[in-house]
């Protein structure tokens, strides 16, 4: 089954790319933005059909490789 993970920078970590995107959007006329934070999205198709087990596997991947927990948070989403 497919499990998705969203990795984002922790709140107190500077996200210069997000800042630039914010400024650009602002310049394009998208006024009223409080903040833009950029992240990464992963979709992992695992050979496991039990949702909670599948999530656990992807969570382990997040901890060990996909995210760097010093600066990033992850969020697991079951997609299928």
């Amino acid at each position, binding site marked *: 089954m497919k499990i998705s993970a969203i990795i984002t920078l922790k709140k107190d970590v*500077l996200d210069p790319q997000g800042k630039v995107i914010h400024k650009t959007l602002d310049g394009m006329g998208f006024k009223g933005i409080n903040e833009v934070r950029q992240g990464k999205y992963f979709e992992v198709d695992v050979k496991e059909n039990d949702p909670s087990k599948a999530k656990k596997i992807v969570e382990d991947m997040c901890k060990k490789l996909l995210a*760097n927990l010093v600066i990033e948070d992850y969020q697991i989403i079951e997609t299928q």
Partner: protein
Amino acid sequence: MKSSVITFPGSNCDRDMNVALTKFGFKNKMVWHDDNELPKSDLVVLPGGFSYGDYLRCGSMASKSKIMQSVISFAKSGGLVMGICNGFQILVETGLVPGVLLRNKYLEFICKNVFIKVDNKDNPYFKHIDKNVFEFHIAHNEGNYFCTQDQLKEIEDNNQIAIYYCNKEGQTEDQFNPNGSIKNIAGIFNKGKNVLGMMPHPERMIDQSLSGEDGSLFFKNLINNIK
């Protein structure tokens, strides 16, 4: 004195490092990332470059490669491991040195000479060196050193900050910080001071006619310290 330079797919300073180490008397071996065993070494170097195309996070893939298991055990048993630039990024991903390297503050790839100040000489890398400010070269996109406040306190308490970005006179004000690193940090040690990660490239400063010789001072001192 024996050294090993690890080559990852995408490393591009490995051969420069080989030239530098050999020039100052190391018997150097090039080691492929997919090898299991590390040759007998007094020093292991993780060179600069763009290992695995900087995919995911700089250094993250390389930190999981086969040879790194041996490098990590070597470091944990007290062996000298030095990571330069991408090598520093690999070191933080292994957890051998604390913190992470974020994108440069102003989102620019920086390629220029900088001055760095050596703060701590109580270690095998800078012991006995009779200079405090060096001119080295940097070339990176992700060199913005970051760590949590707790980690910062810990590395400061343990004197783990190896070098700072500064000006010619050794002043470490904000304006001499090229990439936004916390406290102008350009390089740090692990707790045991046997592992050093730094963004500047000493191997690019070993020839008077090409660059400068501050790297020569560094390598000459290093081999004397290891002997």
